[in-house]
């Protein structure tokens, strides 16, 4: 027996010769008593090992608990320090109440800290946006009866912030484009192309009265404004911002429907189909506008999925993209982007690999950090180029932290074998829903569900502009988020003589307009990418006199600027703005 144990130890420690190993293994197969001794010994060794592992684990646990307490402790100390600091600052400033010097010091200190903070941010000077020529020249192509009514101003419920600024806004509205008025028969499907090329289809019986909730029939009046041109956007006091994020616009619309003066809205299940006149722009999504303090904020309307599918409406043809559900497998494996190593396997292989990648790379701490409870399903689109590399990830409205993580994880996917069409490598998109779970009801932290592959035989151009379905009237915008990897800075500055002016920033490389907020003496634009070529534009009104000031600048930290305001007539102002249109073309 003792000899057996020695032999087994020698075998496990790999000190036996090759011949002895063979003999040993052969014996395991034929000698059942020997085998059971061997097995028991293994169990035993593992049992002894457990003692060790348990010790390690309990050490780790203690460390974990200690770290947790230290964190709280740290926060408490932090709070204490802050209160001490606050206290001493208060007492100090009391001591030197009338001296200005210390106050200045404090301000300098604050701005310094902002600078260092932004320096810590990622410095990858690659811009992911492909900068294209954005808006194609509108074709004047009016199909249906339309009459331009010159007088009516759309009654938006504006609330005043600042009376002089209000002056400007109401002035702008008075020179703004007049809506295109169209009467249609609500009992028939209706389709038309607007002045600047937007196509709208309205299904029949789509409207109900806002107040009564009753279905309407017969003639109804539509009022529509199109905003493709920068001057139109500026005159309407529009901007392209979704919360704090910059949007690039592919056209905006304002649609209103009336019947005998009472406002109408769409029935819940009805949608407008809108084809924006914006060839060549990718990844546009539908945003709905809400006016807050006179500035418009755009909110992503649908989930990404819907938009993409809409984008893909079309025949099953060479140039048109095709959506393929991976579970249905109508394609040969070589036709979709394929994970390396999955060449000879089923489509599930690629999908599983991607899932595996996601669950392995995803930092699940975020689920806890964001307090996600139950399940959260997020939609993502992974875009592969012709070489099979991920070049962009699109996500629906996510918390910045979550979006960053999803982007990081998906951008990190290895190069795929590109999708093919007729033997030629093509770009493709993968629609990948990911489910996050807090783990209470389900096994899983991160799960990627069934995915859909979308094949684009031609990347970039969407032939007929964007088709988006809108369930709402009002402000509609075909936009995409600007995903710049440029460093961002908090941009604010003083503008000479800008009392009561409406100040906007126009981005030259992307079709984007940013409003400013006046904070004390400064005009603040929030966080914007550094080193962008922009135009600062200010319009103000003094009494009956109009002034315009503008300057081309590159965004970097500056304290003040003189826009050289000059007096203009209403007509001159309009012309100045029209001159700017080329910035968006």
């Amino acid at each position: 027996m003792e000899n057996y144990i020695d032999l087994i130890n020698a075998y496990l420690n790999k000190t036996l010769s090759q011949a002895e190993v063979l003999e040993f293994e052969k014996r395991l197969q034929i000698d059942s008593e020997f085998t059971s001794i061997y097995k028991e010994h293994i169990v035993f060794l593992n049992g002894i090992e457990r003692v060790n592992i348990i010790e390690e684990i309990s050490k780790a646990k203690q460390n974990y608990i200690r770290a947790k307490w230290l964190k709280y402790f740290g926060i408490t100390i932090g709070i204490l320090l802050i209160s001490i600091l606050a206290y001493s600052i208060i007492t100090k400033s009391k001591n030197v109440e009338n001296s200005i010097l210390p106050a200045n010091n404090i301000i300098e200190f604050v701005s310094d800290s902002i600078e260092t903070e932004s320096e810590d941010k990622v410095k990858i000077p690659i811009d992911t946006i492909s900068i294209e020529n954005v808006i194609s020249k509108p074709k004047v192509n009016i199909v249906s009866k339309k009459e331009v009514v010159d007088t009516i101003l759309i009654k938006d419920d504006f609330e005043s912030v600042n009376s002089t600024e209000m002056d400007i806004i109401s002035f702008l509205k008075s020179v703004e484009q007049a809506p295109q008025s169209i009467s249609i028969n609500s009992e028939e499907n209706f389709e038309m192309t607007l002045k600047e090329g937007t196509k709208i289809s309205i299904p029949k019986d789509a409207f109900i009265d806002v107040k009564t909730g009753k279905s309407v029939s017969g003639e109804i009046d539509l009022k529509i404004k199109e905003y493709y041109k920068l001057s139109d956007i500026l005159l309407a006091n529009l901007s392209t911002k979704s919360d704090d994020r910059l949007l690039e616009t592919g056209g905006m619309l304002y649609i209103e429907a009336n019947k005998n003066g009472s406002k109408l809205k769409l029935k819940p299940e009805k949608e407008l189909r809108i084809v924006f006149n914006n060839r060549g722009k990718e990844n546009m999504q539908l945003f709905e506008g809400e006016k807050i303090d006179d500035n418009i904020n755009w909110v992503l309307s649908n989930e990404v999925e819907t938009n993409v599918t809409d984008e893909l409406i079309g025949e099953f043809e060479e140039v048109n993209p095709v959506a393929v559900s991976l579970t249905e497998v109508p394609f040969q494996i070589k036709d979709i982007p394929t994970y390396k190593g999955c060449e000879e396997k089923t489509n599930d292989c690629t999908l599983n690999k991607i899932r595996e990648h996601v669950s392995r790379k995803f930092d699940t701490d975020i689920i806890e950090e964001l307090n996600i409870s139950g399940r959260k399903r997020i939609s993502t689109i992974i875009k592969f180029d012709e070489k099979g590399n991920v070049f962009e990830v699109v996500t629906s409205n996510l918390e910045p932290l979550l979006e960053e993580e999803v982007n990081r994880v998906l951008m990190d996917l290895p190069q795929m074998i590109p999708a093919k069409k007729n033997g030629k490598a093509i770009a493709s998109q993968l629609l990948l829903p990911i489910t996050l779970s807090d783990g209470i009801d389900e096994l899983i932290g991160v799960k990627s569900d069934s995915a859909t592959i979308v094949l684009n035989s031609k990347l970039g151009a969407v032939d007929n502009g964007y088709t988006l379905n809108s369930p709402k009237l009002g402000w509609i915008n075909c936009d995409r988020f600007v995903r710049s990897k440029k460093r961002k800075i908090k941009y604010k500055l003083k503008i000479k003589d800008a009392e009561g002016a409406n100040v906007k920033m126009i981005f030259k490389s992307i079709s984007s307009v940013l409003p400013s907020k006046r904070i004390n003496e400064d005009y603040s634009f929030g966080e914007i990418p550094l080193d962008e070529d922009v135009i600062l534009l200010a319009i103000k009104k003094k009494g009956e006199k109009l002034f315009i000031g503008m300057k081309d600048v590159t965004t970097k930290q500056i304290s003040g600027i003189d826009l050289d305001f000059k007096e203009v007539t209403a007509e001159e102002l309009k012309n100045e703005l029209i001159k700017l249109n080329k910035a968006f073309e």
Partner: protein
Amino acid sequence: MSDDKIMGLFKNGQRDKAFRELYKLYPRIEKLILSKGGTKADANDVFQEALIILIRNLEKIDFKLTASFYTYLYSVSRFVWKDTQKQFSKQELQNLQSEDVSILDAILEEKKYKLAEHAFRKLGERCQQLLQRFYLKKMTFKVIAEEMQFKSEKVAKNQKYKCLQKAKDIYRNQLTTVQS
């Protein structure tokens, strides 16, 4: 910390750091066990078991973590708890998926090791030290004899054999009581 980073810690031999990271998942496992009617102490035991199974698997060459650490620990914990509660129905066992089967196998295997551990802990202090030095620290009998002040290598070796046999006897006794 992402799973890859934790995996890196394991690979670099920074097991203490890796375990500490994984302990961050404990509150969620605790929630699970509490929701299934267990106590905090149960949750602690279950999580420890899950960690042991994980680390053992990580050391196997052919093992590949297909899910996240959290998912894996969660599944293992759930199974460990079910097993201690003897809640597996026949049908459930038949319908297990291959990944679950391997988890269950690991759990059953680990139960045997746990018995062996208990047997080991019942040995005297000196026996425990001797076996640990020989099997875990891979010391030679010569060194062991010196450190533990045995008269000779031979005495140490004999002593080790006796300790081992004693532990195995205890183990076998436990096994029969468990099985009967």
